[in-house]
């Protein structure tokens, strides 16, 4: 089979999966569709691996498939890396979906659309022209929109979430289209190769405008502040395999888009572009992690943490562009490596976290942390997997999150000495943003694990939770395994990442050398030995365990009731909740979070010194949504109300409008002529 056929066959399998998901009887359709999706993933991943191994892009063209423009597929190493990323999330997500489907949401539309969504995700990075890219991009947006709406019958929130998502994804796509069309018009051709060839000769103002427009477009897909508001709405409402794909893979394609246009098509730009990217990244990282730390809904927490992680990737991307603009190619490629590794790692752990959140939802029927607790005893495997994935996202060594943060820190560290005013100011602030983000991520995930999985169950549903089917655990296990492997032997994927970086930044020497098992920066002083570190940590834990056994006189513990200040029989209500756990952080950052708090005290009629009842209400809503979007929505609504006066229902009046408009247009034409 030639390489091009792999892509085509993969796409065909994916579409076949969609058809079989729609057409087969209920009993087979989930498994049949899943099997075909795996086939599609395997074929596309094989093509991607081939491209990454050889470095030669796969080029396909069919003039007949799309009218006027035809279909162009060019899978270069940069795109291939993202195809692999999608496959890494899609395979476990599909497996998880088999178990998830037994608990509802196995509607015909879901089993039909899900495979098509996966297929478009796999194909977007191999688009080679504006038309192909936009068609695939829109298909991806529409199918994911349908999937967000799968549970609309059960939840009102899903409808509202879908409306928000639709506005952002369509608005973003429109901006991307405008930007790419401007480039295509100047290039006199719509293939990416032609655009890349001509884009260098464009006026700086046009290039800058295109970059900003496209950045906003892709940023809205990537969940970058202030275009992130759809994420904490749509991710919780979508079925968990879909949220895993949306958060792990689809959002990553937003980053792909920025790299594609910024580096590949426009070939880099002036310093201010990248300062904008850096600023957006820092703002997203801080805002996302802060809201993740104060969320009480498990999937909402994960959604905000996606904004945070994409923010870190943009921080790396911005630093990379900045260093390239100030002529430090080595640092630029290191920054881009960091960005790609961050996105790749994010796919692994965020996929695992969303899938386990889905398992929790299946087992307990809720995702409200204040209703959970004690799940590690009731769902030992899901709990342990969630714990490891949470450790990965909080960048604890020797897991994969740590590798990404280390690379980002090294890029910034060496960039701090690059001797340019812009980077002198930007780099320390970026390090500070990255650090605070890391700290707040610890708050968010200690809370998610500690409140959700440890302690006493806070509701009957949590008390009665039982472990989910083996397929769902296996799915999460695959992704957690990826987190461990990518953390201990990151050099496994570095050759692929290097190829991708060379595609995006041609002419730049690569900064990373896969030096056996150690990560060694070439030309810069920085070594990381993750495998040795992991080995030493394991040995140390074993030694300390042995020491405790030897030194302790009575090694077996006695089970006792926890200390409750002398109070017997503790209840679940004595524990800290997700809200109270995050209260110190919320109080420290109340200028940013602006929680809405309401204390209602009613006194006893006889004396005001005695309280009859007190209710306390605390809610943290999204400040950007409240301050930026709600006023706009309100204004549009008021405008709409005002416009109703124009529509009294009289046909004569409407004819009059038509005549008036025609006269005005003719007058305008006459004036122009």
């Amino acid at each position, binding site marked *: 089979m030639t390489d091009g056929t792999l892509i085509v066959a993969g796409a065909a399998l994916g579409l076949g999966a969609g058809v079989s998901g729609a057409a087969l009887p209920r009993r087979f359709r989930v498994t049949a569709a899943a099997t075909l999706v795996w086939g599609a993933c395997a074929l596309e991943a094989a093509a991607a691996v081939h491209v990454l191994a050889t470095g030669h892009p796969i080029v396909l063209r069919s003039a007949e498939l799309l009218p006027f423009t035809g279909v162009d597929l060019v899978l270069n190493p940069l795109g291939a890396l993202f195809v692999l990323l999608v496959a890494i999330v899609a395979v476990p997500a599909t497996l998880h979906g088999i178990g998830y489907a037994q608990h509802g949401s196995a509607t015909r539309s879901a089993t039909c659309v899900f495979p098509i969504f996966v297929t478009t995700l796999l194909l977007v990075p191999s688009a080679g022209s504006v038309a192909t890219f936009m068609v695939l991009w829109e298909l991806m947006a529409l199918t994911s929109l349908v999937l967000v709406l799968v549970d609309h019958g059960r939840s009102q929130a899903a409808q509202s979430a879908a409306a928000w998502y639709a506005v952002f994804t369509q608005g973003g796509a429109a901006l991307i289209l405008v930007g790419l069309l401007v480039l295509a018009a100047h290039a006199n051709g719509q293939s990416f190769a032609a655009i890349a060839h001509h884009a260098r000769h464009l006026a700086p103002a046009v290039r800058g405008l295109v970059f900003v427009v496209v950045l906003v477009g892709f940023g809205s897909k990537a969940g970058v502040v202030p275009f992130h508001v759809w994420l904490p709405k749509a991710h919780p409402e979508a079925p968990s395999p879909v949220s895993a794909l949306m958060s792990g893979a689809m959002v990553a394609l937003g980053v792909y888009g920025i790299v594609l246009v910024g580096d590949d098509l426009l070939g880099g730009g002036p310093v201010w572009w990248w300062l904008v990217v850096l600023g957006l990244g820092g703002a997203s990282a801080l805002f996302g992690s802060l809201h993740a730390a104060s969320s009480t809904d498990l999937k909402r927490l994960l959604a905000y943490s996606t904004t945070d992680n994409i923010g870190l990737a943009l921080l790396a991307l911005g630093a990379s562009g900045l260093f390239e603009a100030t002529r430090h190619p080595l640092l630029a490629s290191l920054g881009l490596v960091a960005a790609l590794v961050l996105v790749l790692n994010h796919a692994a752990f965020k996929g695992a976290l969303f899938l386990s959140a889905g398992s929790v939802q299946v087992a307990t029927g809720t995702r409200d942390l204040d209703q959970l607790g004690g799940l590690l005893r009731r769902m030992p495997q899901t709990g342990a997997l969630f714990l490891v994935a949470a450790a990965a996202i909080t960048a604890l060594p020797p897991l994969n999150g740590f590798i990404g943060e280390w690379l980002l820190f090294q890029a910034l*560290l060496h960039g701090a000495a690059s001797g340019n005013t812009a980077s002198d100011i930007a780099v320390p602030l970026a390090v500070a943003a990255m650090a605070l983000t890391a*700290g707040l991520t610890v708050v968010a995930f*200690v809370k998610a694990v500690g409140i959700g999985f*440890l302690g006493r169950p806070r509701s009957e549903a949590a008390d009665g939770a039982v472990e989910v089917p083996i397929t769902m655990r296996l799915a999460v296990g695959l992704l957690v395994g990826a987190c461990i492997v990518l953390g201990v032997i990151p050099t496994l994927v570095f050759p692929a990442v290097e190829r991708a970086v060379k595609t995006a930044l041609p002419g730049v020497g690569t900064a990373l050398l896969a030096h056996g098992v150690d990560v060694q920066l070439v030309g810069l002083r920085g070594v990381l030995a993750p495998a*040795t570190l992991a080995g030493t940590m394991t040995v140390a*834990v074993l030694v300390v365990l042995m020491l405790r056994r030897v030194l302790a006189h009575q090694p077996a513990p006695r089970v006792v009731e926890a200390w409750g200040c002398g109070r017997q029989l503790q209840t*679940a209500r004595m524990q800290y909740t997700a809200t109270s756990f995050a209260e110190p952080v919320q109080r*420290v950052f109340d200028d940013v979070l602006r929680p809405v708090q309401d204390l209602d005290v009613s006194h006893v009629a006889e004396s005001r010194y005695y309280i009859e009842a007190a209710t306390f209400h605390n809610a943290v809503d999204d400040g950007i949504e409240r301050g930026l979007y709600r006023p706009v929505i309100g204004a549009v609504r008021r405008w709409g109300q005002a416009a109703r006066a124009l529509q009294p229902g009289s046909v004569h009046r409407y004819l009059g409008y038509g005549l008036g408009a025609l006269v005005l247009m003719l007058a305008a034409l006459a004036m122009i002529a």
Partner: protein
Amino acid sequence: MSGISPMIGAGIASGVQVVAVGVGGPMLVGAMRKVRCRLEGRVGPPILQPLVDIRKLFRKQRLRPDQATWIFPLAPVALVATVAVAAVITPLATTRPALGSGSDLFVLVYLLSVGSALLELEGLDAGTAFGGMGSSRAVTIGALAEPALLVTILALSATAHSSNLPAIVRATLGDPGSVATPQRLFALGSLLIVIVAESGRLPVDNPATHLELTMVHEAMILEYAGPDLALVTVGEAMRLTLLLGVFVNLVAPWGVATTTHVSAIAIGLGALGAKVAVVGVVLAVFEVSMAKVRLFRIPELLAGAFVLALLGVVSGLVVR
């Protein structure tokens, strides 16, 4: 012993470091307590008291709260183990510890956070009010200390163009003047505040308190008894010693062994002990003269540390 291969020498040196931190840590805590007591006009327990206490704790029975999971017994082990790994790779007595090429300040910070994160989880494990209170406060302080810590690392790394700790120490040895640069001084000031915050000393947390409204770390580990408590105590003391050891080797690295020669390591060990003891005594004197600040004043303290670190980075750029 010059015939010894560098690898084995480094291994021995690292082993010595781990033992020194493991035994010296509780002694440092004892010494700091002694100084406090004497300044307050009390006799105070002997310096070796913490070691005696630890031996006593190992003889007691282990207790496990009925709701606790496997995280509860794992957390103290992980705490001690990660600090021990940090003691292996950090240049304390020698600038050539085993696995020193991977000894990065950034790695050190995240390695130590493994133990902290597990202890914070353990606080929530038993399902009590105290544990939750302790871990909620501990994560908040940890989160706020992070920016100061990483920007400090950025400032410290500028001399050696690397965050590799042995490289920084060696660079300082080769260029003694770099210790007195404003960059280094600001960064070290910030680092000291962060060390105080991270190891739960006054004015951030009072290790001697058991008053529920004020305690942070003690609330978090309230459920531990016997050998588990002994491990937590040892781990915390080791972490304080390790962090102070890193601090003194950045302030005044002289005396630290640059080879893996036995006599050099012995001198390095002595110098390390003396320097850490001095800093510990200074901290203790400092602690006597101040009260614990309110929990919601800690952000201001850590913001101050952050500003110091940022000044360090900026002054480095100005002086350049």
